[in-house]
């Protein structure tokens, strides 16, 4: 059941604020040893951004343009396609590659969608809400176009 009152807006966690910095290309190169909660949040935020940017059957050429450069291309493509609900091979991807892809692709997706600061904040805050709900947070969430 949905709460009567929406949670207060705004990003509440350090990992969430780091995501905002990443999207603004202002983040320090290394996040200080991200813990599991941080990685979980980043994965959720990446999924939200991916599904806001792409339709499930978006052309692979379009997806490849987003993932090209700075990442292991096929791994990044598979992570993005998995976030869109496709059954693709994403086992045996090194944790650092996975986390790096979530962060870098999140930033690219935000850039491609030209999200405003407020929209970015709302996206990260939504990811934080989902991350706080362990049972729900693994499910894909369809989002409206920006």
């Amino acid at each position, binding site marked *: 059941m949905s709460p009567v009152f929406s949670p207060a807006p705004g990003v509440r966690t350090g990992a969430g604020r780091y995501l905002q910095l990443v999207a603004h290309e202002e983040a320090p190169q290394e996040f200080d040893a991200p813990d599991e909660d941080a990685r979980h949040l980043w994965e959720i935020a990446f999924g939200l951004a991916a599904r806001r940017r792409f339709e499930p059957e978006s052309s*692979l050429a379009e997806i490849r343009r987003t993932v090209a450069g700075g990442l292991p*291309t*096929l*791994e990044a493509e598979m992570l993005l396609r998995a976030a869109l609900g*496709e059954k*693709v*091979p*994403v*086992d045996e991807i090194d944790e650092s590659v996975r986390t790096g892809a979530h962060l870098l692709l999140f930033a690219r997706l935000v850039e491609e969608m030209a999200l405003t600061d407020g929209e970015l904040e709302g996206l990260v805050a939504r990811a934080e809400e989902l991350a706080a709900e362990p049972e729900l947070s693994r499910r894909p969430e369809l989002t409206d176009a920006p």
Partner: protein
Amino acid sequence: MGQSGTLDRAATAAGRLLLDALGEEGPARSLSRLGSSPQAVRLLHELFTVAVRRSFVGRDARDVTGYIRDLLEYQALPVGGQLARQSEAVVRSALGEPELAYAIPALRRAEIICLVVGDLARPPGVPADELLALVRQAEARVARS
């Protein structure tokens, strides 16, 4: 699947070696043992390119993902991890994305090529005449290069 009726119709000795391997019980494994014949290995790579292009050019690239899953399942190999990604990369490298396969070790690339070409003989298999035509096309590509 027997291809013996076509064995004497390939133009080259390498072509006959390939057709012979494809007619054996475990074609992918038989193809992987052709390493002592550089001509056969060269032809195998061209046959791979020809077979992949005939199968996938003009189709949705996502069909490659499904094909690889089906192929690895048939071979009782893991379908969700690195081998599947590498296999997709090698197939797509023949479809205009060569950079995808640059980082894949040569031995693994060769194994994947054997799996895919060997799959031509998976029951019910490619008709003998078509298989021969594919080999001849591969032979022509080798001769041109």
